[in-house]
């Protein structure tokens, strides 16, 4: 009985989400944004922007982080996780475009920024970068498809142009990951001082790099369960160390900025803001401290919990910038309508489902080359192995 419930739980949940989202989609395109969202003239951006776009793009940052690590910095031990990271990123960006189709008033005009220019606009720049980078991700993932169908000539051509494509991908990502923060620079007196800072683009970029790593660990964990693969545990241990260091840099910069601007005194003011700020910081600081400890790194479940906690902290930060920090100035409080949540859940569920299908049918987890022994081997799931290889 338990087995049966376990087996069908996710499938039934998936169907329920999809049915709800189908009705929400009907509401959106038949009744308009008014019928399908809790948005208003005072609060024009909700979770379709705050979560689906801001978090979606950040969670897809593993694509450029790992591509740079392996192809630019030539750290070969990370080779095994590049392909899943690029697949996640490619799917992530496609799903962000799907979310935009719901949020834009005129979705069929999504291409307008490509010909109607306004170079002073952050959104214009984000639009261009995301379009170009999605193309880059397609090209970065293309070899996987070519390998599957044994198209060796095309593979050779792709190999020859890998470097410029990778460099373009890293630069485009740097630009738009940071620019998602720049979007909110235009509201200095309206975004709460706990979040508005001229450093928004830098902070968004650094946290996106950390999130790219965290997502890669997260999906390695899940794919090892789903496909019965062994966890590259030595590699994961090393990634948690890097994640801890980047988070430390991020939090240090965050607090230095807050103290330089005198924003920490706003913590004395009552209201939702200080609690949400606390939540965001705790969800990032706790996993950081955990990953600095050898005991945590040796414990797969602790590593997984830490990563999930970090990812929730990242989501909390983006939601705080786009929702919590703005509510006071807007004079209204916003909470999403069921249909906004249904569409968001459906997009997440679709992401998981498509990733599973792609990983099943395409050589995502197969390596082209054997990784050099000693450097990246470390596929040892036991605790002793982890201790030996990861630290």
């Amino acid at each position: 009985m338990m087995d049966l419930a376990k087996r069908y739980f996710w499938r039934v949940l998936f169907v329920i989400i999809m049915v709800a989202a189908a009705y929400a989609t009907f509401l959106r395109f038949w009744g308009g944004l008014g019928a399908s969202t809790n948005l208003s003239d005072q609060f024009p951006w909700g979770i379709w922007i705050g979560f689906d776009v801001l978090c979606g793009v950040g969670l897809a940052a593993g694509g450029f982080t790992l591509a740079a690590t392996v192809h630019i910095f030539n750290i070969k031990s990370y080779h095994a996780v590049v392909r899943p990271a690029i697949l996640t990123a490619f799917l992530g960006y496609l799903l962000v475009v799907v979310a935009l189709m719901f949020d834009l008033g005129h979705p069929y005009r999504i291409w307008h920024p490509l010909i109607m220019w306004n170079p002073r606009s952050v959104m214009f720049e984000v639009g261009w970068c995301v379009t170009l980078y999605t193309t880059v991700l397609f090209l970065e993932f293309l070899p996987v498809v070519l390998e599957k169908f044994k198209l060796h000539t095309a593979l050779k051509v792709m190999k020859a142009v890998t470097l410029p494509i990778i460099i373009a991908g890293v630069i485009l990502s740097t630009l738009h990951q940071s620019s998602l923060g720049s979007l909110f620079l235009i509201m200095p007196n309206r975004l709460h001082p706990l979040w508005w800072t001229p450093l928004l683009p830098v902070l968004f970029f650094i946290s996106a790099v950390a999130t790219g790593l965290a997502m890669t660990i997260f999906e390695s964990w899940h794919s090892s369960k789903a496909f019965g693969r062994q966890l590259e545990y030595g590699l994961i241990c090393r990634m948690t160390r890097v994640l801890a260091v980047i988070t430390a840099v991020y939090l240090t910069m965050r607090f230095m900025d807050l103290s330089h601007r005198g924003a920490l005194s706003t913590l004395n003011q009552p209201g939702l803001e200080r609690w949400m700020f606390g939540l965001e910081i705790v969800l990032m600081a706790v996993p950081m401290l955990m990953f600095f400890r050898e005991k945590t790194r040796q414990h797969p479940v602790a590593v997984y919990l830490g990563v999930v906690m970090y990812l929730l902290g990242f989501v909390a930060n983006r939601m705080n910038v786009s929702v919590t920090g703005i509510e006071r100035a807007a004079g209204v409080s916003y909470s999403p309508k069921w249909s906004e949540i249904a569409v968001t859940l459906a997009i997440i569920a679709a992401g998981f489902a498509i990733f599973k299908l792609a990983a099943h049918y395409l050589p995502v987890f197969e390596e082209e080359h054997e990784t050099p022994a000693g450097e990246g081997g470390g596929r040892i799931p036991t605790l002793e192995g982890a201790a030996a290889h990861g630290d």
Partner: protein
Amino acid sequence: MARAILFDSTQCIGCRQCEQACSEGKNLPYDEKIGAEEKTSAHKLTAVRTHGERYSRKLCMHCLDPACASVCPVAALQKTAAGPVVYLPERCMGCRYCMVSCVFGVPTYEWNSRLPYVRKCDLCADRAPKNEPTRCAEACPTGATISGDRDELIAEAKKRLAENPEGYYPRIYGIEEAGGTSVLILSAVPFEQIGYPVNVEKTALPQYTWAALKHIPDVVVMGTVLLGGIHWLAHRKEEVARKEGRP
């Protein structure tokens, strides 16, 4: 000649003639019920608001360097040389960044339309070429709203402040708010008491964004050199192996 409006709230009697003239001119419905709505919306581009015995008008401020026009990814909002900030609906893709960016909360949206557009006052841009007054100014029975050249209206406002210092709060709203606006406001009391935001930046808002955006070309050039260089350094082993004829 930069078109502008001077609204002297001390002369406003709350008759709502400006609202009605505006709605009629823009082919929007207007009746008593809509008149009682004291906020702007997609069907009401200017609103008279009651603050006890005083009245104030809400309408687009037509900033000299508007945030909405700077953030629009498709340049659907543009500041014209004649003064009005105009909206080109055929460009708009509906991202609503203009609404997020506006410090005065002006742009409104047709939330219940299947293909919604942004709505806001356009300072009667259709009347700008012939230099005719705006519909609200034309309809105003007391002269509380007048339209004309911005510099001349500033001079007029200063004259009123000088001639009747007891009657006015000694500031002109719109001279430096958000870097300057084409709508200027006079009041007998501090502006926050009649519904105008006073914590508005004194510099043009697009500067805050530009401070970050201007670095993009440098990031591209420096990033390419840096990444290419790191790649070259990091692949030294492979290069040596190739030269020595090893695989």
